[in-house]
């Protein structure tokens, strides 16, 4: 019997078919749901269930399935196996997409809420969803996050092509671009085989991705209001991540009104923590947050 069981679902959002994917240990146990939200440049299963030749521990989904979670991810509009449309799949578009996905999750598991993890613009998607649907988000992990974007090296560079992002709903991607995701901040923080495996997966499904999140990150930040997030929050930052400054993230952290909040910097990591050399440290931090025991007082404080 396979160690993991996996399921595919199709979300129909206003006529757009979205690919929803689930992985968990292959038994009948009802396990807590954990939803992973992808960013601007690669799909959900591509980034979170990646299999690299000669390596057996790059799948974020399998790792957390083995920890006892029921792990879900979605290809947002224009990514992976989901419909490629003339929309630009901006950050706010993710709110109804995630809500439709959660209805399927609820029907399948009985869970009305899940812990959410998002990376890069996936963190923005997850955060705006948490604001719009606080009843659906039990915990929120924001990795490679950006708040206002002020002085962010990556966004300064990205904004040079803002006219391109605004005038086209998609941008082309190729193998070199996918490699650049892993080298733009700090070469040597990931294995080259990871970028190759990711490129193999993504380019087999298409050679474009939507421009909406790039346009949002260059000109519409902040998209998230820390005061409107009601669940425990963990902010994770790779030491070398250029998507935001530390000051920008600390300003967000400080404004979070929820009092269960964590700010973790992981050295030796860049923008894509879950696919970095030090991914085991990333898993450790995420798991610790998700496994936090509950409060035992009834003080109401």
């Amino acid at each position, binding site marked *: 019997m396979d160690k993991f069981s996996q399921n595919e679902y199709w979300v129909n959002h206003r006529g757009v078919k979205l690919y929803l994917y689930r992985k968990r240990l292959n038994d009948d146990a009802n396990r807590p749901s954990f939803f992973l939200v992808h960013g601007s440049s690669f799909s959900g299963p591509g980034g979170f269930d990646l299999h690299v030749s000669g390596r057996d521990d790059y799948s974020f989904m399998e790792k957390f399935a083995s920890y006892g979670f029921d792990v879900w991810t979605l290809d947002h509009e224009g990514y992976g196996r989901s419909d490629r449309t003339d929309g630009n799949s901006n950050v706010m578009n993710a709110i109804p997409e995630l809500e439709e996905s959660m209805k399927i999750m609820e029907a399948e598991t009985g869970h009305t809420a899940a812990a959410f993890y998002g990376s890069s613009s996936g963190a923005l998607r997850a955060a705006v969803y948490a604001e719009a649907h606080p009843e659906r988000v039990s915990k929120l992990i924001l990795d490679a996050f950006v708040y206002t974007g002020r002085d962010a090296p990556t966004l300064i560079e990205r904004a040079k092509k803002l006219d391109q992002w605004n005038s086209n709903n998609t941008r082309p991607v190729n193998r070199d671009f996918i490699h650049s995701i892993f080298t733009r901040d700090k070469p040597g923080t990931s294995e080259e085989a990871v970028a190759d495996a990711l490129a193999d997966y993504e380019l087999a499904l298409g050679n474009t991705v939507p421009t909406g999140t790039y346009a949002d990150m260059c000109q519409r930040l902040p998209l998230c209001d820390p005061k409107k997030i009601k669940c425990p929050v963990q902010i994770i930052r790779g030491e070398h991540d250029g998507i935001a400054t530390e000051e920008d993230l600390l300003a967000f952290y400080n404004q979070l009104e929820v009092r269960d909040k964590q700010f*973790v910097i992981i050295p030796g990591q860049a923008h894509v923590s879950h696919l970095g050399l030090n991914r085991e440290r990333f898993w450790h931090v995420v798991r610790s947050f998700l496994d936090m025991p509950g409060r035992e007082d009834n003080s109401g404080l």
Partner: protein
Amino acid sequence: MDFKTALDIESQEHWAKRGEIDLFIFRKFSPSAQLANPGRPALLLVHGSSFSARTAYDLEAPEFGEYSLMNVFASLGYDVWTMDHEGYGKSSKTDGFSFIKDGVADLEAAFPVIEKISGHRSACFFGSSSGALRAGAFANSNPERVEKLVLAALVWTGEGSPSLKKRAEKIDEWKASNLRRVDEAAYEAIFSRDVTGLTIPELPKLAAAAEMANGGGSVPNGTYIDMCINLPAVDPLEIRCPVLIFRGDHDGIATDEDVIGFYSALPNKDKQMIMMSGQAHNTTIGINRHRFWHVLDSFLTMPPRVDS
């Protein structure tokens, strides 16, 4: 909470000397837990201004659950140490103030004893309140001794701190004498100064009685004076090891901004800042102490970096 304390915890008492001052050192470990969890480091717990080491970190209250932080971490495989600073617990009562800098000297005197007995040349340090200042200042001056640093109930500059603003009203009193007499009622009051409801009602009396039995009745004024007029006592720029800052959401010893300022200034990028609800100043003996254990153990067991 369902914590299973190891059945084979061993206790040891040791002594160090700083000049003429006798300093009490206490150790707990579990051979079976160490066997089951090889490689767990030494963990040195540094007490704060009011309670001596064993009241703060080895409180016995079996009818109410496990309250000994030493028992918990010994059961997890750590080699757990603590000490009474000058003027506290079983250590010498002197005419000194036991300032933060004296606490650093105490730790410098104790560590060779720890090294000789255990072989550990360095340890992970945990300090709470002015214990965090002692541990932080020790990490500033003895970086080779500190593998990881955990700072709970930390205050950096003290700016805007509700607890310190109130404490400073008595600064002349603190400065006029090297110590203050403390009775059980004063010890009990520590648990209600921020909020009530986050420790069990029986705990203040238990802790007060334990402290009187551990050598209490007076506490030196040095750390109160330091926290009122000599902050900052720790330079974040001079801390080289990984750092965890743990803050209870109702802790009045510092403001969020002050703690975030310290965190931001830490140059080592291996750093975590965790704020937790349902916690006040005394994180180690609150009702939700198991959540603090979880965070502390997670930080101490972080897998090593695999890159060069």
